[in-house]
């Protein structure tokens, strides 16, 4: 059998807007990216950048209205998920693409034991009898590092700690052996030592199963440690995308550069002042006509304020949307 040369997931010109009392909010404004087999793509951005909205659209989990997908294609192994009939999409959820969220307490059913919830997923997707499903649930809980899985399989979500609940969520998300795991701020609600455990677990499982991960986070350090490639989002657009070493080593967009300069680093001498990005996160209902970052950009000129930059290739697998990116 010939290897499938198409990217596992290819998102093209995705535009999503919300109707809000103040008008139209262009949450995602024409983004495109690809996710290859076995890799982790980090989607990084601040609040309102569109990173979560764009990933909810992959599985058609956005409520419409108020959300409206204006254009775009989400090609999963060549098939456009935005065109798949509703009854088929629920089969794809979990089996092809599954998700984990920031707060596992709200994604797990509080009145069912964790074992029961994983059993159900397995029975539904594979048509297994309960006994067989239970056996696999136990294996999954063991795999994600739940202590005494024999006992904890009968626990209710509230009886587990936040880190344990996130492990259960990962077990549940991986139960149907998806090709893609979408992880939306999977460690943001966790303490730093627990975050380290969970990230280690995700990397380990990826190596074991070859799962592709779309990792959505505001935390550049988490990206640096887990992602292979990175897409930086700002105001609904991807402003820069490149392999992780390039993003951190030779960032070309002033926003990426500003973010990297402004994060405090514990292994450096104490600084008198951190580098700042001026201004605030923009109001998406009142975006300027030109580059959305121009009002905060130290290099912006009249051209930037007038005309929006389109993505351009500046290096190997390195795309930047900035009029100044080609200058030295």
């Amino acid at each position, binding site marked *: 059998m010939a290897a499938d040369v198409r990217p596992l997931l290819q998102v093209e010109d995705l535009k999503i807007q919300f109707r809000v009392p103040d008008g139209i909010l262009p949450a995602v404004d024409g983004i495109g990216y690809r996710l290859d087999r076995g890799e982790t793509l980090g989607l990084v951005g601040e609040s309102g950048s569109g990173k979560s909205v764009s990933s909810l659209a992959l599985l058609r989990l956005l409520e419409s209205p108020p959300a409206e997908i204006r254009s775009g294609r989400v090609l999963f192994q060549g098939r456009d998920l935005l065109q798949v009939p509703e009854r088929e999409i629920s089969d794809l959820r979990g089996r092809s693409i599954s998700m984990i969220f920031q707060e596992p307490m709200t994604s797990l059913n509080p009145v069912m034991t964790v074992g029961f919830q994983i059993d159900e997923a397995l029975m539904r997707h594979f048509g297994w009898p309960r006994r067989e499903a239970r056996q696999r649930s136990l294996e999954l809980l063991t795999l994600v590092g739940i202590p005494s899985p024999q006992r904890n399989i009968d626990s209710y979500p509230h009886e587990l700690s936040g880190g344990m609940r996130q492990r259960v969520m990962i077990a549940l998300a991986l139960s149907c052996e998806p090709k893609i795991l979408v992880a939306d701020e999977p460690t943001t609600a966790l303490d*730093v030592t627990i975050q*380290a455990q969970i990230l*280690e677990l995700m990397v380990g499982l990826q190596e074991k199963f070859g799962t592709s991960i779309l990792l959505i986070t505001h935390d550049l350090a988490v990206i640096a440690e887990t992602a292979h490639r990175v897409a930086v989002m700002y105001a609904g657009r991807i402003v820069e995308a490149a392999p992780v070493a390039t993003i951190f080593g030779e960032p070309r967009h002033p926003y990426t550069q*500003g973010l990297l300069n402004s994060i405090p*680093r514990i292994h450096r001498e104490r600084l008198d002042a951190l580098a700042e990005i001026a201004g605030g996160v923009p109001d998406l209902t009142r975006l300027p006509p030109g580059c959305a970052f121009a009002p905060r950009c130290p290099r912006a000129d009249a051209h930037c304020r007038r005309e929006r930059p389109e993505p351009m290739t500046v290096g190997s697998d390195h795309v930047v949307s900035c009029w100044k990116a080609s200058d030295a």
Partner: protein
Amino acid sequence: MPEALLETRGLKTHFALRAGIFSHVVGKVHAVDGVDLKVRAGEALALVGESGCGKTTIGKTILKLIEPTEGQIWFEGEDITRYSARQMAPLRRKMQIIFQDPFSSLNPRLRVGDILGAPFEIHGVAAGSEKTDRVARLLRLVGLMPEAMRRYPHEFSGGQRQRIGIARALALDPKLIIGDEPVSALDVSIQAQIINLLKRIQAELGLTYILISHNLSVVSHVSDVVAVMYLGQVVETAPRDALYFDAKHPYTEALLSAVPLPEPGRRRKRILLKGDVPSPVRPPGGCRFHPRCAKAMPHCATQVPTLKPVGERHLVACHLHHG
């Protein structure tokens, strides 16, 4: 030796744990369980630890928003532990707090001018046009335009709201400011602005800070001294560089090694802790960290380590470092 502006001695804050229809006391949460802290005037102390370590409770206890169970709180050389609300009133001007969430800590129905003017009125410091002048000065101090006083909190971004929260804390020329996760709710690009603001006003006004945070990175460039807490106790305290570059306690080491670095390829040797933080209702005996400690020795389970010096202003509560 320089005088400590604030000191706690053996401070304990326990909460009763109730259950059943008659709310019987079935146990107690050892939220803060014997903490000695010394904050010198003009210094910034960072109080760091994970959820449930008691860092927020300490902040509230120091401000006497919660009554301590045991121990003492000294402020400017006075024992304020048993001060009544009336005795505390003049001290409240000198001790202020900044909260994590700039969205819920400002009254949405009041204009910024009224929010910032309130402290002057309550304490009878200024009224009328003098009050307006003072409010305008406060706004400029935190990097906002005086026109902001005519607007409502919802008209501002998160970062600007945190500036307003800081301005309110500064209104009555405090000596001590307690910041409880002051930048944690802010976007990454805004955090550096607020950290720099905190540093600048500290230098300009000679403030003393206690900055409470779960994030070792965000306090790394504002703190002079760092105290690491675990399950209600301080396990290590040291000057900034000694803590970040020469940590002695295995918990501090694990905490530092768990902090992800924004540098791909620079994978450090990570100390992964086993399991979760135990419950503060029944903390483990001996050293509270021993069940998760890779270097635990048999007597760690039975003997409680106390804070002992290992260097200049560097104290560690660990049997490894005291023979």
